[in-house]
């Protein structure tokens, strides 16, 4: 067994004086002062013999350090029972290893790298969507793309009560064939102030949205957006 015992002897102080020439050619005196002491090391003879063993088996002609790595610095913090409970109440908790430090500064992140990999891959998938975005909506347009529905439908709000379906057919028909116009009405029979216009083609709907959004009609200004699919809940 290899162990170290420091002798009780007082260390010997030593001083060395050396005269050296510096860059300018001048003579400089350098004084080194140090302490020297002896350490008695107990050695096991069998252990020393085993350190000279040859490599065998798969290790033949190898250094033997191919599979050896030093892990991260670990801190074995031992506490009594009551102290552990008090610490848990106040201190910050890491999400990875549940210890009292921030998650970003977790020293065990590398050790748990494989565990956290599946979570990262899930998050990365979300922004990459193959969903179609209309050309006029790609450049930061505030309207939302038609969600799920293949029918290009437009919701017209801020509509005058005098507007009829025939009027909307004429107005929206200049951009393409209109398949359906729907004006919801209240109990008294008057218009609720908005309508749904459905085109046969998405191109026509995009054109109408571009042209008629903000268009003055009767005594009001129209507001157009793509109609959202009705939620089943």
């Amino acid at each position, binding site marked *: 067994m290899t162990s170290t015992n420091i002798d009780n002897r007082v260390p010997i102080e030593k001083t060395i004086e050396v005269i050296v020439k510096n860059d300018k050619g001048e003579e400089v005196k350098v004084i080194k002062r140090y302490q020297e002491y002896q350490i008695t090391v107990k050695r096991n003879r069998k252990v020393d013999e085993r350190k000279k063993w040859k490599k065998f088996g798969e290790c033949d002609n190898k250094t033997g350090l191919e599979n*050896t790595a030093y892990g991260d610095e670990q801190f074995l913090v031992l506490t009594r029972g009551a102290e552990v409970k008090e610490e848990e109440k106040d201190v910050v908790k890491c999400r990875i290893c549940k210890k009292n430090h921030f998650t970003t500064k977790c020293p065990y992140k590398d050790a748990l790298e494989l565990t956290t990999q599946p979570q990262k891959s899930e998050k990365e998938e979300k922004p990459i969507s193959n969903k179609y975005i209309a050309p006029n909506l790609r450049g930061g347009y505030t309207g939302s793309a038609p969600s799920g529905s293949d029918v290009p439908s437009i919701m017209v709000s801020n509509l005058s009560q005098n507007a009829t379906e025939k009027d909307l057919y004429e107005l929206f028909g200049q951009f393409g064939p209109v398949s359906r116009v729907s004006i919801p009405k209240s109990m008294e029979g008057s218009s609720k102030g908005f309508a749904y216009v459905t085109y046969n083609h998405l191109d026509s709907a995009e054109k109408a949205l571009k042209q008629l959004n903000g268009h003055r009609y009767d005594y009001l200004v129209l507001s157009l957006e793509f109609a959202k699919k009705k939620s089943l809940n």
Partner: protein
Amino acid sequence: MRPISLRLHERPITQVLFNREGDLLFVAAKDKLVSLWYTTNGERIGSYQCGGVVYSIDVSQDSKYLITASADAKARVWDVSSGRQLDSTDFEVSARSIEFSQGDKQILVVTDQVMGCQAKIHVFDFDKDEVRKLNKSYTLPSPQCKITQATWGPLNKTIFASCEDGAVRIYCTEKRELIKTILDHNKLVTRIEWTKHRIMFMTCSKDGTAKLYDTKTLKLLRTFDTGRPINAAGISPLKPHVILGGGQSAESVTTTKVDASQFKVRFFHIVYGEELGGLIGHIGPVHSICFTPDGKTFATGGEEGLVQVNHLDESYFEFDDDLVYNPPVQH
């Protein structure tokens, strides 16, 4: 404290073992390989190629002979320094556990309970001077269930067997019969670990508890509860500390709540029974823990094939010095 990571094995580690002086580390794994390392710097010396999954290993006191129990139904004797196989013996089924007796004169081997064969404990005479080193001595009666580990009791008078039904069975080596059964665990007992000089022993179980017993009276002294299966324990020779490792195995991960901290290696105080702290290093269940006989280093082996050698700091040894009783000096 910087652990040394040994990443040779690709399959789960079954046992890590230090020799008597603590300078050699033996690692057995399920990839049919036993590897030999220097403890101080993690340098590999060699390997021993077995024919099947290596379940258990043991080394003699003079560090010259290594014995292995493997799934190809063989128990083998190896020369430690050269990796040569010296002797082997055949069984009908897998050998699950193997151990030298104190004094290295006998070897016990546990065979599995599969394919209609009963689990048995075989005892062999070990003669290092003969060419034929293993000679059959006797067989203990079967407990009618699977034995996970068997170990020699103090002075080789008894053999302790940990069983699948949660019992620890104690056999007498003179009469070769069962003399005692401990039925405190309600699930599979995975490991029996001895303290220094075998005064006490600790049993680890899948029911999440480890129990400490007095060897002479078999009285239950302490129960350590971790709330998850315990696969291994290491009892410090220097300090009244015990290290427990385990964790939920991979096939039952989806049925239980799992987070990373369940694979921690936990430190408990033997006397007070409370948890002192823990170390995270493994990303799978810990299968084996071993202390060096001088108590300054311990190694852990896990399901992911990683072995970590931890050289303990001085702060670990100074932790509870105030609890140590120092008698007043007589003048």
